[in-house]
């Protein structure tokens, strides 16, 4: 991967036409915790799994899920501070849009604006790209539900289900296997917890912690982060299911 | 002689049309939020200043300071609140009371509290009354061209343990006094204070030492002002500052 001297600025492309800084950023995202977003019949579920760095941490402190407006949520991975600066940028865009156009910012417009922002960090010399990928989920009366993911390179697409981080491949297969489109949000949550834990295969020894949030018609499309107690039970239940699945396979 | 000019009225038709009827009905007709005595009512403009009236008296004693203030704030002829405290504590040894416009007073007091807190955090000691007096003077002058509509009395125990009162005008000219009165009843209260307490006009400079006598005088002054000044009334709030802290108590006075 070393680009022999081409890899320190974004302003220079290597002979093979690659910007190494961006690829380093994508690498940082690859090794970080898994995040995924799934669109269901009546809402969207966002989730992430984290390793608890030290026993003495208060539960739920390393927040990865943020809400941009009361009806749009987001989850970030990789360098959390970079992710948060994108979230703050998103909040400013939302307030400015609402002040001028009087309606809540459509998720599609928000996603495009944040994507442009991310891309802007990949062209100037000296400014490093965002070392984070962000999944945006929201609902508005313009286009209904929308689930977008923005990569460090500035790419931004709309998904039915998307994932990023170390368990990306495994999560994608699981999502394709289960037909979430027909499922309701409440049915989808346990499955997603299982997928997230499976994605953490190789980190089994450390204490794992999930963080899940939903936007669904039951909560009036308000972005709600599920409270700690509920999520902890979920993780325990999911772990047992994985164990007995392993027993059957072995 | 024709009756026409006998009555002398119609000659001044111009005067008749132009003048503004100053009857009460005219006041009620105006948009309600501009309800103040219509003499200085600018035509349709927004006047940023309003005087919420009220009176406050401060008397310095040998080792204490007494503040007596009424607790009524009003706007025009209508009472806004009957139990509004006009004094705030800046440090354990220093209190500020003011009459004038409540919005400016509260902002000024908050600003002073913030500056005192920063001073305490930075130098690890509480500021003395003299330094606060200087600070207040500068703060007021800071807003020379849009002044705080607040007439302040800064009272506290100075370094050698004596009570002291600092009197201010709205834009920051101040000096050290032994007693002071501010607000709507100041013209009524000033003569009693001059007579009863030792001030500049006395050759013998001895500060009163008996708290109860000074307290009774303070209460009596506010009561007598309430008799004659329509903007003073409801309750009198007595604040006594001495070396072991600040005591506050309230007593009712005439409510009309």
């Amino acid at each position, binding site marked *: 991967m070393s680009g022999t001297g081409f890899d320190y600025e974004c302003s220079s492309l290597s002979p093979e036409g690659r910007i190494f800084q961006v690829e380093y950023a994508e690498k940082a995202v690859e090794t970080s915790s898994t995040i995924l977003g799934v669109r269901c019949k009546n809402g969207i579920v966002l989730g992430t799994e984290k390793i608890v760095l030290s026993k003495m941490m208060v539960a739920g402190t390393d927040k990865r899920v943020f809400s941009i407006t009361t009806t749009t949520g987001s989850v970030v991975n990789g360098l959390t501070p970079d992710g948060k600066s994108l979230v703050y940028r998103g909040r400013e865009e939302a307030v400015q849009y609402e002040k001028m156009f009087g309606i809540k910012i459509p998720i599609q417009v928000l996603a495009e604006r944040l994507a442009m922002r991310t891309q802007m960090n990949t062209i100037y010399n000296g400014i490093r790209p965002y070392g984070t990928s962000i999944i945006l989920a929201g609902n508005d009366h313009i286009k209904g539900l929308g689930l977008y993911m923005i990569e460090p390179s500035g790419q931004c697409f709309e998904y039915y289900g998307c994932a990023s981080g170390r368990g990306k491949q495994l999560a994608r297969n699981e999502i394709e296997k289960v037909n979430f489109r027909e499922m309701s949000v409440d049915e989808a949550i346990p499955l997603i917890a299982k997928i997230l834990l499976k994605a953490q295969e190789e980190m089994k020894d450390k204490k794992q912690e999930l963080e899940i949030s939903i936007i669904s018609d039951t909560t009036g499309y308000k972005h709600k982060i599920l409270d700690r107690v509920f999520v902890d039970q979920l993780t325990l239940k999911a772990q047992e299911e994985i164990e007995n699945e392993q027993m059957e396979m072995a | 002689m024709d009756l026409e000019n006998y009555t002398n009225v119609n000659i001044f038709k111009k*005067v008749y049309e132009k003048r503004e009827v*100053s009857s009460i009905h005219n006041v009620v007709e105006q948009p309600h939020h501009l309800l103040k005595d219509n003499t200085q009512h600018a035509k349709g403009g927004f006047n940023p200043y309003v005087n919420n009236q009220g009176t406050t008296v401060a008397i310095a004693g040998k080792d204490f300071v007494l503040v007596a203030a009424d607790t009524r704030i009003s706007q025009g002829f209508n*009472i806004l609140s009957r139990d509004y405290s006009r004094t705030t504590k800046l440090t354990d040894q220093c209190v500020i009371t003011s009459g004038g416009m409540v919005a400016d007073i509260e902002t000024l007091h908050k600003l002073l509290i913030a500056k005192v807190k920063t001073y305490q955090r930075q130098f690890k000691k509480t500021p003395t009354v003299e330094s606060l007096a200087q600070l207040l003077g500068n703060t007021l002058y800071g807003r020379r061209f849009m002044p705080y509509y607040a007439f302040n009395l800064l009272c506290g125990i100075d370094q050698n343990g004596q009570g002291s009162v600092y009197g201010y005008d709205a834009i920051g000219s101040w000096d050290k006094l032994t007693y002071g009165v501010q607000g709507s009843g100041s013209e009524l209260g000033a003569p009693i204070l001059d007579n009863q307490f030792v001030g500049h006009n006395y050759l013998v400079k001895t500060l009163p030492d008996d708290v109860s006598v000074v307290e009774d005088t303070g209460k009596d002054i506010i009561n007598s002002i309430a008799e004659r000044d329509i903007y003073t009334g409801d309750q009198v709030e007595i604040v006594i500052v001495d070396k072991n802290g600040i005591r506050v108590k309230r007593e009712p006075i005439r409510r009309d």
Partner: protein
Amino acid sequence: MELDYLKTLPLGGFNFDNCIRNRAMAESGILQAPKTMKTGTTICGVLFKDGVVLAADTRATGGSIVGDKNCEKIHNLAPNIFCCGAGTAADCDHVTEMIKRQLELHRLNTHSENRVQMAALKLVAHAFKYGGQIGTHLIVGGVDVKGPQLIECSNDGNMYSMPYHTTGSGSLAAMAIMETRYKENMTREEAVNLCIAAIEAGIYHDLGSGSNVDVCVITRNKYEMLRNIKHDNFKVFSKPGGYQFKKDRVQVVEEFKHKLVVEAGEQPMDLS
């Protein structure tokens, strides 16, 4: 024959010459006309089954200073007609005095009782003539052959009648009481209590009114003037020992005594 000296006589009635001068000076900005002070008051009147109740507060203010703590605002126009006056105190007193004299003359000429409406109309005509410059807001009440009546005459010269009236700076507070508690055909006690409550509303809630409540009840050929029926506003606290004026407070620089020699008349009082 031409009585030219008549022209030199001062014309009767009000003299408005200095109005032009005042206006010219005010416009030129040299001198601002003295601020016309708004006097505060609360007066009210109410009709009941067989009569009228008039009530008033007793505070006369000049701007923000209380001039008189116990003045009388209910004026007697005729045995069966009373009127309470708000606005400029001098105007009310003199105008009511003038109307009282005219009513008395009318009573003597026609050997019959005065009518409330006539008193009201005289007041209104007078006020209109002077274009509202006379600050008299009056509530005229009385009982005459047409029954109990209550009429309000404002300073610009209109009059109207309602079962209950309030005027003065405290009229707003008093009107709230009237509007909510007035009932038709009230008894004497109810009407008096209602009026007292209305005036107390003005006393406590309006800065322009205060001190005590005067009430006057007028029924067919009888009136009762209840002066200071309620008087619970007094100085709450006064310094126990009163004020001493110690001589030693001032440093004596020099003392000079001189015996006063009196040639005639009694000896001066001994002051030593």
